C-alpha cells in the first residue's frame, strides 16, 4: 500500500523506498534539491543532531 502524504513518519525510510524529494537551502543560502544531489552519482546524506 502506498502511504498517503503524511508529514510525520514514525519509522525511518527503508531500503528500497523512494525518498520524498525536497528543496532546502544550504548553509550559504543556495537552494539544493534532493533529486539533483542524488544524480547522476549517489548521495551519502548524513543527518546530525545540530544545536551544539
Amino acid at each position, binding site marked *: 500500500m502506498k502511504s498517503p502524504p503524511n508529514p510525520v513518519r514514525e519509522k525511518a525510510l527503508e531500503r528500497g523506498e523512494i525518498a*520524498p524529494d525536497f528543496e532546502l537551502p544550504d548553509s550559504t543560502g543556495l537552494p*539544493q534539491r534532493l533529486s539533483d544531489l*542524488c544524480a547522476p552519482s549517489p548521495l*551519502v546524506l548524513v543527518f546530525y543532531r545540530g544545536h551544539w
Partner: protein
Amino acid sequence: MADYRSHEAEIHANGAKLAAISVDSPEKSQAVREELHLGFPILCDTQKQVVREWGVYNAREKGGIAKPAVFIIDSGRSVRYVSVDEIASRVRASDVASLIAAHGAAPAPPRHKLVPGPRTWVRAVSNSIQYGVREPGSGSK
C-alpha cells in the same frame, strides 16, 4: 562530522557525493562548516519538514532535532542504505566508505557499462585498506 570530512575524498573517489543535514539555521550550519573545514554542503531543514517525512525526527530533545542517521540515495531517489541511531551515535564514515567501495556507488547504467569495472572498485578498497581509514577521534572532533 569531521569523521565524514576525513572520508569525503574516499567517498568521492568511489563515485558518490556527500551532504549533511540538520534543523539548524544557515548561520549556525555555516559556522559548523567553517569550524570543521567541511567541503560538502550542509542543508538546513529549519522547518523540520525533511526530518519528519524521512522518519528521523527526535521530538524529545531540544525542541525537536534530527536523529543521527545516514542514508545512501541513488538516482531516482531510491534508498539504498539506511542507518538510524536512536541514541547519540552514528555509523562511522569508514564503514560507509567501505560500503560504497564494496557495492560500487555509481548508478546502475541503463544499458551498457559506463562505470568503472569491478577492478577499479577493488583497487579503491585496497587503497583504503593500505593507506588507511583514519580512526575517528585521532586529532579530529
